[in-house]
């Protein structure tokens, strides 16, 4: 008898967690029209490989691939290359706007070789928002 109650309570708890999780997801993501993003041009191979090598996907998504919390779609339309450099390396405007812990984490990217950094910036600059 008690075992039955135990099973019911467990199912109830797990069920409540599942229900609230999807409720939360629905609330955070109302079905909104997402504009089509121009997919990145086929070149920028070096910039792309720097992006992959530094595991930027763990925090950033491009065209739906990667961590969707900080999408980089259209970032080339939002920021100038010099500003993109600041964002990548956690300096300047980024140091002001980012939470300190994250800005600090980004500063390790200052050690990226200059040529690679420029290729990465060029790649990100090419990510334009759809008109």
């Amino acid at each position, binding site marked *: *008898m*008690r*075992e*039955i109650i*135990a*099973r019911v*309570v*467990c*199912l*109830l*708890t*797990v069920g*409540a*967690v*599942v229900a*609230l*999780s*999807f*409720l*939360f*997801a*629905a*609330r*955070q*993501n109302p079905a909104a029209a997402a504009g089509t993003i121009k997919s990145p041009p086929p070149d920028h191979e070096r910039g792309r490989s720097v992006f992959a090598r530094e*595991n930027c*996907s*763990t*925090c950033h*998504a491009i065209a739906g*691939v*990667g*961590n*969707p*919390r900080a999408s980089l779609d259209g970032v080339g339309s939002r920021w100038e290359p010099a500003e993109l450099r600041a964002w990548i390396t956690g300096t300047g405007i980024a140091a002001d706007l980012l*939470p300190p*812990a*994250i800005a600090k984490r980004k500063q390790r990217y200052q050690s990226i070789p200059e040529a690679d950094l420029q290729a990465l910036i060029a790649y990100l600059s090419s990510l334009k928002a759809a008109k």
Partner: protein
Amino acid sequence: MRDGSASISPRKSIAPWWPAIAWIFAYVLLSIFPLLVLLRGRPRAGGGYWWDAAMALGFGGLAIMGLQAVLTSRFRRATAPFGVDIIYYFHRLAAVGGFALLAAHYAILRVKYGAALGPLHPLTAPWPMTAGRGALLLFGILIVSSLWRKNFRLEYDRWRIAHAAMAVTAIVLALAHIYGVGNYTRLTANRLVWMGYASLWTLVVGYVRVVRPLTLRKTPYRVTEVRRERGAAWTIAVAPQGHAGLQFRPGQFAWLTLRASPFRAKEHPFSFSGSAADSGALQFTIKELGDFTRTIKTIEPGELAYVDGPHGIFSVDHHPEATRFVFIAGGVGIAPIMSMLRTLADRSDPRPLRLVYGNRRWDDVLFREDIESLRPRLHLEVVHVLQETPPDWNGLTGVLSAPVLREAIPSSWLSATFFLCGPKAMSDSVQRTLRHMGVPLRRVQCELFDMA
């Protein structure tokens, strides 16, 4: 440990389900509380439907895993309405449920956002990811090593130490993972919630591992007698040293620590087998069944012991409204029932009692003579059931199967309150038979012996 509320006479029957409902509600609320806080926050730009769902599932799963430590902390006020044995049963269920949620968290991320998980290798992956994977792996090992402990022949004491160590490590890694990933802990409310949970968890573990052993150490017991019984069983009597001891209800049990300090968590649960009306030493009757119980015969009078109890609701005192009782015992399951019979005899309880007692051989029938000596003092009928019968046997033979039980329990006894105690397989099949015989489940009390 003294339980001031327990008295020798049966307590008045309060609505026993009200505290139980309250504790269940508290548990469910604590499990979903992090999600309620998330929902209360302002909707920010979502990370994607499945992303956010995965995060929330992870939070819920971890809340459940964290609460596991609270479940096994044996706070008597919380376990008393349920019986602590069912709490351990629930602990196992909740582990599987919590793990399923954590696995879903990981699976969704892997399938839909694989690139966000980054590299697998611990040395190249961001440390919060390694921490998360480590936690998930440890939780999986915890569950497998616990549910199948006997199949893997893991020795109990060593398994217990490993279990605690892995659980602590997994929780710490999981909290580090949440902190390191940081998406949601930027929100103050969220951060407070998880700090709150971490604190609660630490306090509970501190209580179980430090405070309670310290309290036990202040109320030691000494072994006064080690007596051989029939059927490879031993009765150990312990008397309180320098304190008043404890009161228990007949049928309850306690965790007994022998030859170890209370800090080492080398405790084992055994039923009280003596009368609750007897103010002398506490008696435990233990059958030689496993690693620890085989060492009982080497215990000498004078040795130190610690008793954490009483626990359990498997007692006639929880059913003062019953008009008659049927006790069904298999093997060493007779121990708590013996306590109830001895106590009822000491109280000169007039109610009709029937004992159906299954054993392998007549010579191994534990408490055979003690039961006989109680019969003049009680309205007690005894039905022995044996698997191997002596030549002149004209009683019931076999196991406690359906036909045997139907013969042993006449229809006039179906209105009784039933107490079952024995190996799980026996207990499960007897419960089924009783149900088929028309006994409602709420009048069948069962003690789950197999807690680990």
